[in-house]
C-alpha cells in the first residue's frame, strides 16, 4: 500500500536558519500521527511543505505517492490543511464560508448544499449556519476551519495545532471530532507542543526538536524505550507512613515519596518499580494482604511531559558529548 505521507531526508533552510534538518517519516492510511515538539521545532515548516505552501531545500515529500513539488495541485486535491494561525473572511456567513471553499475545490453545485449541512453537523455548528463567521468564538472558528478541510473529502488532513488557544471544553470537543474523522478513515497528521494532548488520540507520535525527528512510533513503545522503571502512584487510606515503610522493604521498589494531590483523607505515594505488569499486580496483592488499605494503584505512565523533556534533553546531552 502506498503510504499517505512519505518524507525522505527533508531539509528546509531559511536564510541562515535550519528549520528542518533531515526528517524521514512514513504515515500509513488510517493512521493518526502526532507531531510534538517545542515551538520552533520544525512542525509547522514540515506541515507547510506537505501542504505545498513551501518548497523544501532538499529531500522529498510525497502525499499519496505524489511529490509535493512536482504536482502541487494534485497534492492539494488530496489534503485538507488547517494552518496554525489563520483568519476568517469578514462579511461571510458560516455556510457561505464552507460553500466558498467547496467551490474552490471544484465541488459541483448540487452536491454543495447537502454537504455544507453535513459538515456543519460533524463539527457541531449546525445552529450557526447563518451566523457571520467573524461572530464565532475561537473554538467555533477552529471547528469551522476544520470543517473547511473536509469539503473535498480528502484522504489526508494536516492539522497544525488544532487545539491551541482553546479552553478545556473546546479541546475535548476538538478531540471528539478528530476521533470521528478517524472513524471515517481519514489519515491525520496533527501537531501540538503538548504531548499528552496528542497521546490520547494518536496511533503514533513523533517527537521533533530543532528540525530533527528524535523519536517516532507508538507512544507506548517510545515510553518503554525511555523508562526501564515504572512510576507507581498509590493512594492509601489510613496510615500512609506505614505503607511507605512497607514498600521500602520490597525489592525492586525505590524512591518512595509521599506526594500531594490526593483527595482529603487519602495519602498519595509515588515509587519507581522495576517490574512488568504481572509483578505490579503481585506487589498490589501483597500490599493488600499486608493490611494496607489501597484506594488507587496506577502506573503513572503518562507523565508525558517528562518523556518529552527527557527526549529533547537527551539530545542536548548527546550533542554536548
Amino acid at each position: 500500500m502506498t503510504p499517505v505521507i512519505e518524507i525522505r531526508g527533508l531539509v528546509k533552510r531559511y536564510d541562515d536558519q535550519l528549520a528542518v534538518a533531515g526528517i524521514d517519516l512514513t504515515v500509513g492510511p488510517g493512521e493518526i500521527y502526532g507531531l510534538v515538539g517545542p515551538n520552533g521545532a520544525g512542525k509547522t515548516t514540515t506541515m507547510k511543505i506537505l501542504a505545498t505552501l513551501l518548497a523544501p531545500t532538499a529531500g522529498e515529500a510525497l502525499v499519496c505517492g505524489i511529490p509535493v513539488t512536482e504536482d502541487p495541485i494534485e497534492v492539494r486535491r488530496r489534503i485538507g490543511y488547517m494552518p496554525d494561525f489563520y483568519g476568517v473572511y469578514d462579511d461571510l456567513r458560516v455556510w457561505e464560508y464552507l460553500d466558498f471553499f467547496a467551490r474552490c475545490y471544484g465541488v459541483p453545485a448540487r452536491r454543495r448544499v447537502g454537504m455544507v449541512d453535513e459538515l456543519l453537523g460533524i463539527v457541531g455548528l449546525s445552529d450557526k449556519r447563518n451566523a457571520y463567521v467573524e461572530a464565532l468564538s475561537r473554538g467555533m472558528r477552529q471547528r469551522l476551519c476544520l470543517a473547511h478541510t473536509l469539503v473535498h473529502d480528502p484522504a489526508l488532513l494536516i492539522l497544525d495545532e488544532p487545539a491551541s488557544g482553546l479552553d478545556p471544553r473546546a479541546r475535548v470537543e476538538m478531540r471528539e471530532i478528530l476521533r470521528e474523522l478517524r472513524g471515517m478513515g481519514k489519515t491525520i497528521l496533527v501537531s501540538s507542543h503538548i504531548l499528552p494532548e496528542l497521546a490520547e488520540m494518536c496511533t503514533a507520535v513523533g517527537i521533533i526538536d530543532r528540525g530533527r525527528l528524535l523519536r517516532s512510533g507508538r507512544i507506548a513503545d517510545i515510553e518503554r524505550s525511555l523508562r526501564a522503571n515504572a512510576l507507581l502512584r498509590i493512594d492509601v487510606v489510613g496510615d500512609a507512613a506505614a505503607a511507605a515503610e512497607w514498600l521500602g522493604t520490597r525489592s525492586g521498589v525505590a524512591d518512595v515519596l509521599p506526594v500531594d494531590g490526593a483527595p482529603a483523607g487519602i495519602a498519595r505515594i509515588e515509587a519507581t518499580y522495576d517490574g512488568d505488569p504481572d509483578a505490579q499486580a503481585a506487589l498490589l496483592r501483597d500490599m493488600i494482604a499486608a493490611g494496607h488499605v489501597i484506594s488507587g494503584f496506577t502506573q503513572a505512565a503518562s507523565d508525558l511531559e517528562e518523556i518529552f523533556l527527557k527526549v529533547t534533553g537527551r539530545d542536548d546531552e548527546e550533542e554536548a558529548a
Partner: protein
Amino acid sequence: MTASEIPVRASAPREFLSAVGTIMVKELRSRMRGRRAFVVLTVYLAILALIAYGAYVVIVPNAQAQGGFGGPVNASAMVGQAIFILLSVFQLLLVCFIAPAFTAGAVSLEREKQTLDLLISTPMRPGAIIVGKLLAALAFVFLMILAAVPLSALVLLYGGAEAEDIVRQQVVLLATAVGLGAIGLFFSALIKRTQAATVLTYITMLALTVGTILLFVFWSALIVRGNEEAGRFGGNDRAPEWLVYPNPVIAMTDVMAETEAESFGGMTQILAQIRGVELGFDGGGAAIDCAPGMPCQEPGPGQPDVGFNNTVVGHFWPRVSMTLAGAAVLLTLVSMRLIVPVGMRFVFRRRRTSAAADADGGIVDSPLPAGEPPTEANAEEPPA
C-alpha cells in the same frame, strides 16, 4: 476504482473560469453586502448629476449671449460640450482614485488577515485567484462607470458631443480602471502591508498622470537648451511622445479634444504641443468652418487635408488605452507569479503524474465520495 477510471475533470479553461467565478462570487458577496455599495453608487451618481446640472446652469446664459454666431444650435452644442467635458474629467478623476483603492488590498489584506494560505492551499490556479480578484474589484468600478452612461448620454440631446465621443470616453475610463486596478493588485501581491501597497499604488498613479507630463516638459526643455547651446534655434525637437502613452489624462484630453471643432481649441493645442505639430490653416481653412455639433466641411478635391485633425486628435486615446490594457496583462501575469510559494513550480502540471494515477487506482479515496460515478465530476460539461 481502476486507473482507467480516473475521474475526468473539467477542461483547463473551464476549470480556470469556474475558479475565477468562485473568487468573484465571494468578493462580491462581501462587497455588495449591506447598504454601503448602494449608498456609494447613489452618492456618486448624484454628484455627477449635480455637475451636469451645474454646467447647464452656468453655460446657458453664456451660450445664449454668444449664440449670435451660430444661432441656437451653436448655443445648445456649447452646453452639451461643457457637460461632456465636466463629466469626463470628473469620472476620470474618480476612477483614478477608486480603482487602485479597490485592488491595493486584494492580496495583502488576505495576507494580513492570514487567509491567504487557506486560499493558496486549494487547487485553484494562482492565475485564477489573481484574475478573479482583479475582476471582482473592477466589477464595482465598471458598474459605477456604466451607471453614469445615461448622464453622459444627456449630451446627445444638446449636441456638442456625439455617441462616438461617449464610446471613446467609456473606452478610456475602462482602460484606466483596468490599468490602475492591475497596478494596485501588483503592489498588493508584491508588498506585505496593505498601507504600503496603497501608498505605492497612488504614487504610481500620480507618476503616470502628472509625472509623465512633467517629465515630458522638462525633458523637452533640456533638449531645447541643448540645441541652443549648440547654436541651433527654433527647432521643433522635443521629448519622445511615447512618454505620455501610459497617461490616462492625455487620453481623456484627446477624447475631449474630439468635441473641439475649432483648430485652436485648448485641448487640441496641448496635444499638438506634445506631438510637435504646428496648428494652422495649412489645409486651406476647412477647420475654421467647423462648429460644435456641426459636421466639418470636408476639404474639397485637390485640397490637402487639414493637418492637425488627422495627426493630433484621435492619436493618443487608442495608444494610451492599449498601453494601459497591455500593462494590466503584464502586471497580472507578474502578480500570479508573486503568490506562488517560493520555490514551487509556477506552471503547475496539467496532466496528472503517473504516481497520482497509481494512487487513485490504489488505496487512496478519490476526491469523489464512494457511490458517485466518476464521470459525475464532469457533469457540468456540456454533452459533446
